[in-house]
């Protein structure tokens, strides 16, 4: 099984984020991490490789900072690192990011592609699905269980749906987006970390994969501003006798929330 895993770096989910004075960008003083959903993708790829052989190729695209997340993936057992690094990728929308990925991936033979189900930055969850559409391969999104049948060249996957789950079947090659719960993550080993340090990243830019800026489709939206969610909380904190507190809370449910 040759598996491609697409990675993205995102602001640390534990970080407090602040908006610049101009209201358009975030203040850049937060730590970056590998997108948490991508970790499940790397882990699943390595498990499949350990079981059936093959190799795991990690790909990330972006203007900067991709090296660290690629190295982390290699330290846990991935084989090849590809980095499309280009200043033109700054602020590019998801559909065009998928176009870049599809241009790189169409030069690499693969049996399956794994992507995190969404980045915890924009939360939009578009790149994986758009990439499957561009490559015209089956898509199963937000999978929580994945069974590969290499002989039949098929996969069975379980995905969460409202009020339950759905088991689906599809032929390979296919693209799966990974959800929390798919697997338990492993830690990088010392030898893995050493190997990751030594290994060279295959660095590409847009020109080398045959994409010019005018290949990008128009995005029909423009950021007008960032803001904090409106908080109009009453902020009344009760203390003391439990019965009295509860009575006040119930009055609140009756008169304000009006659900009693």
């Amino acid at each position, binding site marked *: 099984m040759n598996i491609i895993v697409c990675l993205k770096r995102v*602001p640390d*989910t*534990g*970080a407090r*984020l602040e908006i610049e004075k101009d209201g358009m960008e*975030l203040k850049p003083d937060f730590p970056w991490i590998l997108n948490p959903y991508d970790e499940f993708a790397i882990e699943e790829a390595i498990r499949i490789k350990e079981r059936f052989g093959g190799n795991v190729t990690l790909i990330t695209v972006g203007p900067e900072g991709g090296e660290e997340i690629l190295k982390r993936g290699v330290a846990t057992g991935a084989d090849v690192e590809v980095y499309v690094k280009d200043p033109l990728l700054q602020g590019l*929308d998801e*559909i065009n990011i*998928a176009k870049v990925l599809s241009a790189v991936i169409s030069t690499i033979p693969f049996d399956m592609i794994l992507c995190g189900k969404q980045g*915890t*930055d924009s*939360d*939009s*969850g578009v*790149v994986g*699905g758009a990439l499957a*559409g*561009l490559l015209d391969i089956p*898509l199963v*999104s*937000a999978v929580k269980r994945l069974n590969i049948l290499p002989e039949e060249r098929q996969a*069975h996957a379980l*995905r*969460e*749906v*409202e*009020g*339950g*789950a*759905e*088991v*689906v*079947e*599809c032929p390979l090659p296919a693209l799966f987006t990974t*959800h*929390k*719960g798919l697997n338990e993550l492993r830690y990088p080993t010392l030898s893995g970390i050493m190997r990751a340090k030594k290994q060279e990243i295959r660095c590409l830019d847009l020109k080398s994969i045959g994409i010019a800026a005018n290949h990008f489709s*128009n995005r*029909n*939206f423009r950021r*007008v501003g*960032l*803001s904090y*969610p409106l*908080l109009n*909380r009453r*902020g009344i*904190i009760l*203390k*003391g006798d*439990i019965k009295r*507190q*509860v009575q*006040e*809370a*119930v009055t*609140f449910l009756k008169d*304000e*929330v009006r*659900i009693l």
Partner: protein
Amino acid sequence: MIWVLGETRGDALAPVTYEALGAGRLLAGPFKRGLSLLLLGEGMDDLSKGVLKKADRIYLIEHKLLNSYTGYGYKKVLEEFFKDKDISALIIPGTSMGRDLAPLLSVSLGLSCLTNITGVEVINNTVHVKRPLYGGKIVETLALEGSAVISIMPRSFKEPEASERQGELIRVEARLTEEDLRVRPIEVLREIERREITEAEVLVAGGRGVGGPEGFHILEELASALGGLTAASRGAVDAGWRTHASQVGQTGKVVSPKLYIACGISGAPQHIAGMRTSRYVIAINKDPNAPIFREADLGITGDLFEVIPEVIKEIREIKGIQEGKP
């Protein structure tokens, strides 16, 4: 034309279908366009009766292979359907179906893709849409400058008012084969007890302070007294007490219920991000300095195992009186 893709839940239209129609109405005004609803699958006639006055046109796109959702099946049929039609916006419910379909459709229709939209507003003839970023820590406002596939967050839009006029019902026969589906559903596992937390009006959420899986019984009792569901923080899910399907927060779900009761949840930023859009918040916590109190309309300081039984008792008393029982 503004298009809305409907979704069913069991034998009825999912609530988010009405919400998508509400979002569609907000867009139809500024674009000066009509509003059309698309319902895919067989036997939609009865379901369509409830929305006849909510859209200008209702298309019933019928085929037996459309009875359950498949990404490529829906994509193929919609691609064919839209061949000779103009799209200003195509609104899709932000559900497990919509999150799967929106990017596929955007690529095939050549449209931009905007997901998780929670608001629409018109400013100086420009349509502005809002979406949460970073799990809800930040809100982004975007100006819409052309056609797009737009998925909406459940519970973010109001159902539109019924219009005077009845919408026109149009039947379309779809062409589709088994091979077109690419991904074949083989089994649906229904959890009868579990409904979807993003669609609930009341959520009673528990964190590490609940102490263990058994502790959630009392939360379930409170949820059922209020006609709601239970949810959990990442702490409670990572401890293995609850399933990830019920996790609220940045690596879980963003929820917007009418009432959110946080029990034994301290209020880490990634949890707050997921519940901030709740209409009313009550927090119950032993620690008077817990950050969750800053996000609450009302805080109760105390042991949740003392507080919640009291609350349930009071609620039952009130409901008993309403129902005329002693």
